[in-house]
């Protein structure tokens, strides 16, 4: 995870709150949140090496296959449920987002924007699935099975009447950063969303 993402994300998380991180990787985010915001965090991870890395950092890590469901977590049991760069690797991202909003009062989701101009040009010019620095897999071996664009994601939020509290974008060059403010779907490399349940039923999503 990039430093910039971390900094943006941190602004949306309250000090001393309870955070659940889906696909927590090596635990860097949770460690950072604990140190800077005194957050009580738990991470879910499936990769053995990353789990060991979390243990070495002293981060609470729970071996879990997110695709098998999160039904054992009670409603509203976390202040924020975070998922960074894992959405596109899930079997049913839409169902996981439902679960995140059930478990957390708020959610933060980040994902690589497949609608970025670079990606579009790659596909248009070469006629092959984009392989970039950020998305470095071949089509056949990628864990990323559900790519989406900024517009796709927002359409899903509308459909599910999910409230978008904030949106931020990350891009690698200064000009792209500026342009991504105006045309996020063309210039954001990574999109970061701060979500909550629908306004009219924030207390109960059932």
């Amino acid at each position, binding site marked *: 995870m990039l430093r910039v993402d971390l900094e943006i994300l941190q602004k949306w998380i309250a000090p001393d709150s309870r955070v659940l991180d889906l696909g927590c990787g090596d635990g860097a985010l949770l460690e950072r949140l604990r140190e800077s915001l005194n957050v009580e965090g738990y991470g879910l991870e499936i990769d053995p090496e990353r789990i060991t890395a979390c243990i070495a950092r002293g981060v609470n890590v729970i*071996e879990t296959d997110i695709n098998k469901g999160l039904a054992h*977590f009670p409603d509203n049991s976390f202040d924020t449920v975070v998922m960074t760069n894992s959405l596109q690797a899930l079997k049913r991202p839409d169902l996981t987002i439902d679960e995140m909003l059930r478990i957390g009062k708020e959610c933060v989701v980040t994902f690589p924007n497949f609608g970025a101009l670079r990606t579009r040009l790659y596909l248009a010019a070469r006629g092959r699935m984009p392989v970039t620095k950020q998305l470095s897999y071949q089509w056949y071996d990628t864990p990323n099975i559900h790519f989406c664009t900024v517009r796709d994601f927002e359409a899903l939020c509308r459909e599910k009447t999910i409230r978008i509290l904030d949106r931020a974008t990350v891009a690698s060059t200064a000009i792209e950063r500026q342009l991504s403010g105006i045309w996020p779907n063309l210039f954001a490399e990574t999109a970061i969303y701060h979500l909550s349940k629908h306004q009219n039923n924030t207390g109960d999503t059932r």
Partner: protein
Amino acid sequence: MNSSFPSDSVGLVKPQTYVFDEPLELACGRILPRYELVVETYGELNRTASNAVLICHALSGHHHAAGYHSPEDKKPGWWDAYIGPGKPIDTNRFYVVALNNIGGCHGSTGPRSINSATGKPWGRDFPPLRARDWVHSQARLAAKMGIGQWAAVVGGSLGGMNAMRWALEYPDRLRHCVVIASAMKLSAQNIAFNEIARRAIQSDPEFHQGDYLSRETLPRNGLALARMIGHVTYLSDELMGTRFGRELRRGTFERGLEAPIEFQVESYLRHQGDSFSGSFDANTYLLMTKILDYFDLAREYDHNPVKAFGHALCKFLVISFTSDWRFSPKRSEEIVDALIGANRDVVYANIESEMGHDAFLLPNPRYESVFRTYMAKVADEADKLARGN
């Protein structure tokens, strides 16, 4: 130390006996007037006694967890794979305390010991125990050894129950609780297996309602049968398939021949049963399986595990094994969910293994790596405390 021992072994060890003359009030209401605990220790206790680790044994375990009693020993202690210099429970850093619990049959006060009131072995009259009785007896041992707070209390299976009970009974006397292949309570299926094992023992004509010692006999067949049943449930179908398959130890299926046939698995189980029944005490087996059956972590906390763990102060490491169906990963996940609900620090790993419940005793690279990484943090903390910062 004998140079023929492996370099990562604690080497030659000698059990010690601690005598407790102060009566111990038991959960059943009866009082154990005095008791002895047989104990082994490995490593050195540091200046501030911050590096002590308690090992809680399982159903058939005892104090001999690591090292060798004599140079002729063929096998080391029961958890030698994980206790020793450079091993996950690193005896270069920790002072490890392993004991035989009361009710046991390896030297600590139990059904085989002499009841001072009668001058005869306790036998079936030995009071029924609960895991908390072990915790209280272990707390007195800690006090005697000058250990105010364990760096970690560690246990697998029944030992994991013992460790969890520690976290609730004496929350400020341990910093970490390591619960391996365990459960907050047994399932009906699990109790059922224990009952079959008990019935096997009780049906042996030599059992004499538990009074076999005074009649100078032993319910060997019953105990062997109990162990065979238990053993099958500790292994997985896959493992038995790869280890024994349908291989024959003797005989043949060839037509026209009437030689007696013995499968490898039959001979293996028979051997396991026979060697166990020669060394273990039947009354202890009955008592231990009942401790397992009656254990219910949250019973006194309105049957609410979150409320129960709300009383704990330590951090938890929970480990399960994919092919363990006697203490399945689901049971460990329940522990983890309750700990998260109670806002306790917890790490959980579900280790890929085909060894069944026995996996917690056996070498496994991933299990080792998780355990080692966690215990290294525990040791760092203990060092920090010893330095006084």
